[in-house]
C-alpha cells in the first residue's frame, strides 16, 4: 500500500480513541491531540525505517551496473551468475546491489534481469529511457539490441518468473543463499525483514507508553491506566495496521521478528499498487476519521446517525467514483494478476511513489 494509506491508517486508528479526540475541545488538553499525528507516524514507520535506514545499512558483496556509457549487459549478467555460483560453493549468502543509471531531465536508463530457471541462465537486457514517474519513452532503446545470457551452475529457486526492472532511484538488491542443493534468490531482502513485524509494534507501544508515563511522572502527573493504554494502543494500532494491510498484498512481511527470520508470503487479496484500491482505502479512512470526529464532538456537527453517515460519506460517493471509473476510464490490457509480478510491482511502487 502507498505511504499515505499507511499514514492515514495510523491517524484513523488514533481517532477511535475518544480521549484524544475530545482533548481538542479542552484548551488545557489540546497537546494530547498530538497523539493523532503520532499514530500516523507509527503507521508510516515500518516503511520509513526500511527506506530511510535499512537499505543504506545493508551490506552488498557486489555492486554492479552495466556502465553509464558502455551499457554492457554482460557486466551485469556475468557478475550475477558468478554470485549464484559463489553462493553455492561458499555456502554463504551473497548480496548484490544493482545500481540505477540516472540520465538528464529526470530520466533513467532501465535494464532488466530475467532468471530462466529451467535453462539455468540469467538474462540481462538494456531497456528504454523511463521517467521518474515510470513513463516509458518509447523509441529510446539502444539502437542495437543489448542482451546478455550467462549460465550458472546450481539449481536456483526464484519465485518470480518475470523480469526484474532496474530503473529509478535506488536499485534493487538480491540475496543468494544456499538451502540444501538449491540457491534461493531473495529480492530486496532487507525490506519488511524486521520493520514490518507485529512484535515491533508491541515493543514500540510499550516503549512509548512507558516513556510518556515517565515524562509525566517527572512533572508530577500520574497517567491513569486508560491514558497509558490509549497511548500504547495508538502506537501498536498504527504499526499493526501497516503490517496487516501489507499482509493483504503479495510480498508479505516477517510478522514475528525476531522469533521468525523470514518474510511470510502475503495473502494476495489486494493489488496494493492499484491506484484505485489505494484511493478507495484512503477515502474510507478519511471518512472514518470524520465519523469519529463527529461522534466524539460535544454536539454532532453532521446531524446524521452512524448509518446515515456511512451511507452519505462512504457508500454514496464511492459508488459514484467507482462507477465513473469503470464507465469512463480507458480499459486496461485485462492482464491477469500474477503473483510474481504483483510482488515485484508492490515493492517497485513503494519506491516509486515518492
Amino acid at each position, binding site marked *: 500500500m502507498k505511504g499515505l494509506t499507511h499514514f492515514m491508517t495510523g491517524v484513523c486508528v488514533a481517532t477511535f480513541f475518544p480521549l484524544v479526540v475530545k482533548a481538542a475541545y479542552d*484548551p488545557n488538553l489540546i497537546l494530547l491531540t498530538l497523539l493523532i499525528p503520532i499514530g500516523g507516524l507509527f503507521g508510516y514507520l515500518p516503511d520509513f525505517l526500511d527506506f530511510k535506514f535499512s537499505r543504506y545499512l545493508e551490506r552488498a558483496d557486489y555492486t554492479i551496473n552495466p556502465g*553509464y*556509457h558502455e551499457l554492457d549487459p554482460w557486466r551485469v549478467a556475468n557478475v550475477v551468475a558468478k554470485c549464484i555460483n559463489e553462493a553455492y560453493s561458499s555456502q554463504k549468502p551473497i548480496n548484490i546491489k544493482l545500481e540505477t543509471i*540516472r*540520465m*538528464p531531465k529526470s530520466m533513467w536508463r532501465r535494464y532488466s534481469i530475467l532468471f530462466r530457471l529451467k535453462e539455468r541462465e540469467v538474462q540481462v537486457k538494456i531497456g528504454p529511457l523511463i521517467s521518474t514517474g515510470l513513463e516509458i519513452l518509447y523509441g529510446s532503446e539502444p539502437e542495437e539490441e543489448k542482451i546478455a545470457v550467462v549460465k550458472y551452475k546450481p539449481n536456483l529457486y526464484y519465485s518470480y518468473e518475470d523480469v526484474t526492472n532496474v530503473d529509478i532511484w535506488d536499485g534493487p538488491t538480491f540475496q543468494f543463499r544456499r538451502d540444501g542443493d538449491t540457491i534461493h534468490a531473495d529480492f530486496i531482502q532487507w525490506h519488511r525483514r524486521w520493520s514490518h513485524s507485529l512484535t515491533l509494534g508491541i515493543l514500540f507501544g510499550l516503549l512509548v507508553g512507558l516513556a510518556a508515563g515517565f515524562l509525566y511522572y517527572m512533572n508530577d502527573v500520574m497517567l491513569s491506566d486508560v491514558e497509558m493504554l490509549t497511548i500504547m494502543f495508538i502506537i501498536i494500532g498504527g504499526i499493526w495496521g501497516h503490517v496487516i494491510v501489507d499482509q493483504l498484498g503479495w510480498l508479505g512481511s516477517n510478522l514475528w521478528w525476531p522469533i521468525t527470520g523470514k518474510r511470510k508470503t502475503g495473502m494476495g487479496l489486494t493489488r496494493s499498487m492499484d491506484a484505485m484500491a489505494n484511493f478507495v482505502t484512503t477515502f474510507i479512512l478519511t471518512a472514518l476519521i470524520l465519523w469519529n470526529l463527529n461522534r466524539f464532538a460535544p454536539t454532532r456537527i453532521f446531524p446524521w446517525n452512524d448509518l446515515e453517515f456511512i451511507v452519505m460519506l462512504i457508500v454514496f460517493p464511492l459508488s459514484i467514483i467507482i462507477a465513473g471509473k469503470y464507465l469512463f476510464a480507458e480499459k486496461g490490457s485485462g492482464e491477469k494478476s500474477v503473483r510474481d509480478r504483483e510482488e515485484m510491482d508492490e515493492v517497485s511502487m513503494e519506491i516509486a511513489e515518492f
Partner: protein
Amino acid sequence: MKKQAKSTSVQKKETRPGYCPKCGAYVGAFYSCSWCHSKMPHGTRLRITQFASIIAVIAGLISLSLYARIDPAPHVNIGDINQTYSNGTVTIKGEIVNIDYIVPSDESWKILIFTVEDKTGSIDVKAYTETTDELIEERNTPALGDDCTVRGSVFVRGDELYILLESTEYLTIKRPIDFTLNSTDLYALYENNTSDYIGKRVKVNGTVSWVDTDNSYFDLDNVVRIFYPEYVRKFSPNVIISVIVGDIVEVIGLIDEYYGTLEVLPGSMHDVEIISHGGVV
C-alpha cells in the same frame, strides 16, 4: 580511431554542466560523481553555497531576534488604528470606559470586551474564554476607570475593529486611588462639586446602613451607595460579600452618579473589605 572518438565524445560531455568531467556520466546537482567518485566542477561551489546558506540562515535569525526584541509590540495611538493594522501586534494605553462581559448560562464560553480610550480615540479589546478565566483567577479583571496598557493583535471584520488579548500577561491595569475619605466627607465634597468627582477613584469607609435584598448594592451611612456592576458580579459568581447593617467596610471604587444618588462602583468583589462586623472586631 574508436578510442579517440570515444575520448572526444567524453571530452564534449565534460564541458556540459551536470556531467562528470572524468567519466562523462550525468550526475546532476550532486557534489561528486556517483560513478567514478570524482569531484564535480561545481562541487566546491555547491559546498560553499550550502555552508554559506546555513550560516546566512543562522545569522539572519539571530539578527531577527535582536531586531524583534527592540520593540516587539510598538505603542500606537488608538485613533491611528485602521484596517491596514490588521494582524498587527500593538500596544495601546488608555482608560477603560466601558465593559461588557458575555457568558451563557452553561458557561461554555466567555467573551470579555472592554473599551479603551485615549486622547485620539477608542477601541474595543476582546478576551475569549481561556484568557478571561485566567484574568478572573488572577484577580486581574478590568474595571471602569482603570488605566490600562494592552498588548494584542488587531483584528478587522468589516466595520468592526478590535484588539485581541491573548494572554493575561499583556494586560496591565493601574487602579490609582485619587483620595481616601469616609462616607460622610465624601458626600459633602460631592454635594459641593459634583462634576469634579465623577470618574475619580476613592477609597471610602463607612458603616453599612442598608443592604439590597439581592446583595447587588448596599448603602454607607445613608449617603453613599456601593453598587456592584453586573460585570463585577459575573466575574466573581462564587465570591459573595455578605454585609449586614452595622458592618464597617472599606471600599475602593469609581465615583458615579445615578439619578442624583452618589454611587461608588468597586472594580471587583475583592475591592470590598469588611473591617468589622456589626461593631464587633
